């Protein structure tokens, strides 16, 4: 196995995102992370949907298919059905994954297809020039919602957990270290991994995640999820996530927190209840946001046992077996 470097994953295609787009940072992190997989570029496939994120596949020097709006999870599922020897990645956006492609995303996660899904959430339609997306906040003024959006936003993490996703995480575009850690955990997961990446659109929704990317604000607004660690955050104002008397989770000042009530993160819990409660914490628009791995549990991977068995059967099934199959009915001879 040859030693791989970031350069092995950079394609010669010219990147064409807008200057300052968060997608550049994500691309650089992914390309830099890829050598860690120790999988040669020809065994890696990126399947993408439509939207700015969809162009991602052109910029990776792996196999790539820039598919149809929302359909990448379905196409990747078909690829995974035929080839369990590949590392298959889907790159999608909030409109692509949660609006037009919602059904495919849900069912890929429900099946636990061995595919890693990177969902770039910029809370806006960028490529179509600035309409509200399913994750746009209530009241958001866009070209398609001049009076402010009247729809509550979708929560990708909660949706993924509801669909039964076995790996669910959230990271941010401009934090290479955090993103690499989440990518690593996703890559190590055997089934479907859903990674929401908060991504800045400098043209149509600039600074949407300033509160978690700006250095000073970030230290107050990031709720780090680390398996086995108590969930606490905030440099100037230390806070903790606690179990409230009504059973829900809440954020309280660290000084008021009863140590016993501070929630210890458990991403490996069979039940998704804690992960779901964490997904309801905070607010993507302002205030604290949980980041990291919400859930990472082992479950049977879709087709894992049958894929290789069936391919072996296909190899064994030759002309003699075909003749037998064709004759497997009430037959009669004419001589």
């Amino acid at each position, binding site marked *: 196995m040859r030693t791989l470097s970031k350069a092995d994953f950079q*394609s010669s*295609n010219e990147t064409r995102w807008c200057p300052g787009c968060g997608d550049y940072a994500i691309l650089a992190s992914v390309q830099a992370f890829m050598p860690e997989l120790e999988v*040669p*570029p*020809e*065994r*890696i*496939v990126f*399947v*993408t949907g439509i939207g700015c994120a969809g162009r991602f*596949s*052109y910029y990776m*020097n*792996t*196999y*790539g*298919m*820039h*598919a*149809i709006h929302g*359909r990448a999870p*379905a*196409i990747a*599922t*078909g*690829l*995974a*059905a*035929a*080839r369990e*020897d*590949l590392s298959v990645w889907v790159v999608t956006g909030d409109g692509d994954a949660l609006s037009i492609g919602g*059904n*495919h995303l*849900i*069912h890929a996660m429900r099946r636990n297809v061995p595919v890693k899904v990177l969902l770039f959430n910029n809370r806006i339609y960028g490529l179509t020039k600035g309409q509200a997306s399913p994750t746009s906040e209530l009241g958001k003024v866009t070209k398609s919602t001049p009076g402010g959006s009247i729809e509550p936003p979708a929560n990708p993490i909660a949706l993924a957990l509801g669909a039964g996703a076995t790996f669910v995480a959230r990271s941010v575009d401009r934090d290479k270290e955090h993103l690499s850690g989440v990518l690593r955990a996703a890559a190590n997961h055997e089934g479907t991994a859903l990674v929401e990446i908060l991504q800045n659109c400098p043209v149509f929704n600039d600074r949407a995640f300033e509160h978690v990317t700006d250095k000073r604000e970030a230290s107050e607004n990031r709720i780090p999820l680390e398996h086995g660690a108590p969930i606490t955050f905030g440099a100037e104002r230390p806070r903790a996530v606690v179990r409230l008397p009504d059973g829900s989770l809440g954020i309280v000042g660290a000084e008021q927190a009863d140590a016993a009530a501070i929630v210890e993160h458990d991403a490996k819990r069979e039940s998704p209840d804690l992960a779901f409660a964490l997904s309801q914490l905070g607010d993507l628009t302002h205030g604290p946001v949980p980041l990291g791995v919400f859930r990472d549990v082992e479950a049977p991977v879709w087709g894992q046992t*049958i*894929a290789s*068995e*069936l*391919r072996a*059967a*296909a*190899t064994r*099934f*030759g*002309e003699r*077996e*075909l*003749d037998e*199959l*064709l*004759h497997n*009915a*009430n*037959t*009669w*001879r*004419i*001589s």
Partner: protein
Amino acid sequence: MLLYPRLDNGERGYVRTMSAQARVRGVGRREEARERVVVRFAGDSGDGMQLAGGRFTDATALGGNDLATFPDFPAEIRAPAGTVAGVSSFQVHFASRDIATPGDSPDMLVAMNPAALKANLSQLKAGASILLDEDAFSKRNLMKAGYAVSPLEDGALRDFEVMRVPMTTLLLSLAEGIEGASSRDAQHARNLFALGLVSWIYDRPTDITVRWIEAKFSKTPVVAEMNLRAFKAGWNYGETTESLVAGQVHVAPVKDLPAGTYRTVNGTTATALGLIAASVKSSLQLVLAAYPITPASELLHELARMGRAGVRTVQAEDEIAAAGMALGASYGGALGVSATSGPGMDLKAETIGLAAALELPLVVIDVQRAGPSTGMPTKTEQADLLMALYGRHGESPVPVLAASSPAQCFDAALEAVRIAVRYRTPVILLSDLFLANSSEPWLIPEAAQLAAIDPHFAKPPNPDAPFLPYARNDDLARPWAIPGTTGAQHQIGGLEKADMTGTVSYDASNHALMTRLRAAKVAGIEVPDLRVDGDEGAQLLLLGWGSSEGAIRAGVRRVRQRGLKVARAHLHHMNPLPGNLRQVLSSYERVLVPEMNEGQLARVLRAEYLVDVRSHAKVEGRPLFASEIEAAILGELG
């Protein structure tokens, strides 16, 4: 092509014995020989008519007749019992010569209840036989069927030969002799009683049905016994009840058949086997992704059982996903297939368009049914032709094939895969509900004789030369470089690509070039010339496509028997059309195009060839009948 089965004599020993007895006892009763017979089993959805018809078909095939069948059932799984809406039927046409269709009008109608009689009576010609369960003609059942007066009493059946058999009563008394058998078991065995009686009347082999009953109900001995006795009681009823059953009708086995081994096959099974054969001949694993839809689901069911052939089936979350999964599988180097019916085709259009842009193999099978929208899910039609040809945005040419008979679905499936793989293109294969459900005898091909399909995957390129994903061979097909091929990493997608290099391109002349290359590739697909079955001096050509082949052939035969001259040809390749079609069309003064739509092929021919073809359109959710073709031809020749 329908083929002609005949049975080795030895296999009918048991039956021969019974028949001989019947002849001895039946002295004085009618012994009639006929060239062909049409039998229709009709009853409530729950009466087991499809089962009775299927068993009768198998026995008839072994009996050495040519045959064609047509099941017809409501979309509702259990429509209200006893109503006309809930009537299910199965028609079998069998003959001592080559036959082409399931028959227009039944010679024998089996009616298990008043609704079945009501639903089918108008299609009977005077003199036809009707076998009915007299016990089912109760006041309540008559009312449910919408009869104010019983048709048994008011003379409505005076033109027919009616056999009123108290089946329910007979079976209830039969059940009393079987320990553990309930009156419900007796009721459920009525179909086998009717099958037994019809089997006697037409002198069908019985051992195959007996074996089937024994195997089918091996886990429920009481039910097996009830059904066996019911079947035999039906047979014996024919043999002994001279007052009611006029006698036997014999349809001799067909002679002069091509040698070989035969079986019956319906279009669904033939398609499934064709896809598996294509998988074997190409060494590509078959991946079928589908979403449940009538009538295409049957193909999913058949292939889901084919794990031993390495077939991977996926029940997708929707029609769009099914097409996407098939395409994803093809991208990975498998044989990706998706099967659906009309409404599903609407949803697959974007994936077919993507496959056309990606230039990857994909087979999409459309088992057509009556539309628009949900239309009539259990009724046949061939009205998706224009959608298959043109139903995508942009210039998106796609090869389209149409199967012409149940058994021909095997060849059509193989041909679809051959084209998809050789030319790296999506292919639409049009079948229809009639083909899917109808069955006919099939001369089983030998695997070794089927042409190999070479996937011709791209090899790892020379490291010094860049890999060109959109370079083309003599067929204008591009390389199929599957993930895992070292050094051939490339990125494809729905955005227009530059010739050769495959990079994203908005260049004006490149788009024109790529558009024309895609079109030229499809236009250049090797298609056999159209063969014409024509009388010397014929001035009228019948040009058909798809499942109406049998009806057109039979209609033409009838016209020829009248001494008239006519030619016919049948299209299997709808795009590209055969190279000699222009010349064929110009060789006849008149061209008549019968089809189960409002003239879609006629429209294509007019547009492509500026020929003033005439359309014979039928959109009744039923197949074309030979008699209709005959009348249409006579009208033209008038």
